[in-house]
């Protein structure tokens, strides 16, 4: 089974949004890696991964995501995962959460978090 990668960029917000569909295994991780290399040229601070269609992730895939995180800007940048399926959430929980790589249950939750971060920034 393959992996489908759909990209959406929001330059003003310095955010790239990628929807993944299928399986992220040791073979398809290479494809994602190549795509991310092209995409993440420093323009973005944040990578949002919509995982609604992702059925499987292995260590190979996680490694790619960790590398992507390094391309994101510091501080409030990061790799955010939304709409992950239970199986995927389980895998992330085994690996344990990492700073800047947050798994949100939904876009709403992510927006809430970002809103909170914004306010924190504004308050200084």
């Amino acid at each position, binding site marked *: 089974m393959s992996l489908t990668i759909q990209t959406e960029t929001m330059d003003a917000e310095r955010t790239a949004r990628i929807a993944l569909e299928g399986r992220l295994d*040791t073979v398809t991780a290479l494809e994602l890696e190549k795509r991310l290399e092209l995409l993440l040229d420093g323009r973005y601070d944040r990578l949002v991964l919509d995982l609604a269609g992702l059925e499987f992730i292995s260590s190979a895939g996680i490694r790619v995501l960790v590398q992507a995180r*390094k391309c994101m800007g510091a501080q409030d940048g990061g790799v955010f995962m939304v709409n992950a399926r239970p199986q995927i959430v389980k895998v992330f929980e085994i690996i344990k959460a990492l700073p800047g790589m947050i798994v949100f249950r939904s876009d709403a939750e992510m927006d809430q978090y970002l809103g909170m971060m914004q306010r924190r920034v504004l308050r200084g």
Partner: protein
Amino acid sequence: MEGEKLLGHTVLVIDDDYELASVLADFLQERGYVVLVANSCAAARKLLEGATVSVALLDLRLPDADGVDFMRRLLAHESAPGVVVLTGHATIDSAAAAVEAGAAGYLLKPVSLDGVAAVVERVIERRNVIEENARISKERAERLSEVEALLSISTALATTLELDEALRRVCHDLVRLTGADTAAAYLLDQQRDALVPCAAYHVPKQHFEYLATSVIPVRDAGFYLPLWRDRQAVYSDDVAGDMRLRHSLFRQIPHQSGLLLPLVLDADVAGAFYVAWWTMRRTFTDQELDLLKRVCEEVTVLLRNARLFEKAKTYNDTFRELVSSELRIAHKIQSSALPHDFGPLTAGTGLEVHAVMEPAREVGGDLYDVLRLPGDRLFVVLGDVSGKGIPAAMFMMLATALLRAAARGGQEASALLARLNDELCVDNPTSMFVTLACAVADGAAGTLRYAMAGHPTPVLLTAAGEAHLLSGDAGTIVGVLPGLNFPSATVQLEPGDTLVLYSDGVTESFDPQGRAFGEDRLLGALAGLTATSARAVVDRLQDAVHAFTAGAEPSDDIAILAVRRLGAAPLVLEVRADPHSVVEATDRLRAWCGAAGIATAAAEDLALALEEAGTNVAVHALARRPEATFRVRLAQEGGEAVLEVRDLGAPFNPLEAPPPMTAPGYAEQRVGGLGIPLIRGVMTRAAWVRDGEENVLTLARALDQ
């Protein structure tokens, strides 16, 4: 001879002897004849033009023509008089010749007056007789043609149920019979309260349109009401002047004479014939009217028959519609009584079931049923009721209901059948019977206890794809004799084994050449089918039967039920040490899990474990050597899915890799570091041993979570 018969007859004397002629004339006149005298052929001819002569007294020796010649020419005419030839002694030969030529008689000159009188009388008498005969013959001929006409009408009515066609033929016969010019038939249309034209004969083209569309209103004053009141024929030889026939129909198409004949059915006017003469003035004798009335009576019989036939046809159509809708309803009831959704029934039993029933007619007599028993066991049954259609279906539903009740009572297979048998025997007036095969299956232990009642032997299809018939006694049919025992036996189902029940509609399916599907083809269709589902087994068999019969009309219901123990023979793979091969192995693993009935979550965990372990082995133990392989074995054992990875590489224990770090920089962990926590996270057991030259990694995932 009576004097009256002579009166009025005209005698023509043709003689050039004036004295003789005058004597004869006086004499005959005295006797009451009208006498004409001619002295030559020419004169005679003239007189004959103007008068009807009964007898001609002809002198053979006439001045202007040969007497015999003249006579011949005379006799050639229609209504020629009888000719008596007068001749002298000297010419007796010519007299004989004249008689031969058609003379009615001869007289020798000198004639005696009495002789003349006698001859004339005789000739006239003979003429009367001939006329009388002709008249009688004509009458007889007429009557014959009447009879013929009646016969023709009767035949027409008897041989055709097509009302319009019959009426047309009657119109034709009426015209012939009565010497009319045209005739038309009308039938009463009750909705429109009018007589509507249905058939006609010899209607002139220019009047056809009008006649075809003109309808005679019943209550119309211009129409003759006594037709309805008295039910009598109405006729007129002067239609234009007849006050009774005032309707525009009678005026629009001018005709001289008309005859209106009612068709009376059950004392009501149901129609009429109208017969017309364009120019002739036609009157009718009572005899004729009587005959025509009889014709109408015959037609009425036809009318009655046509109506009855119409009614019968409507009833027949209604009945057919009722029967077919009843069958549809019965089919719906029956098919909703058969279980179709097996998932909920079998969940958690370690078994899966699938079944189909194809009825030969709209309602079938084959049955199957699946029942969940206490202890997560499953009861399955497949049966065949004698006969087809609604009675079989009803008996089938009764049997099913009784079986369910008995099965819930916890009885074992053989006892179930005995109980069902006794109950069905109780109230079975039509002596219907059913053959059955039933089984109680324990998915956890894998045991299946089956009992047979005269039913085709079930087939066991192993996980490896071997198909064979079960052994044992076939038992006897249910529902005929009470108090019977039914043989039973036990068979062990290994994971992935399937028991197939079927009705004889399967083995007795016929192809267009009349060959039966049979047990051999049944076994052949299933053999080789592996690692699959109960549904796939049923589909395979059903498809094989359809392909065999190739569209021939099914002779019997077809029922198939497969009960399969979940699981599969262990999966054994040899995997190459490259990413693609590892991913492919995880696909094979997922397929095996599906066939083995392992839940998706567990299957995904196993797939992840295999990918991580496989990648580790490929990278570390086998150092990514292109031709190197490692072996994978996956089996379902004692509530666990056990995954074993063996390789002949360098000693390497993946489980010894350091645990994950949560501090930043862990991403720099050596390759493979993430895999181990993942394996430990999704598997419930993980162990490594070095067995001789092999690394053996054994992982297990509990399946009840």
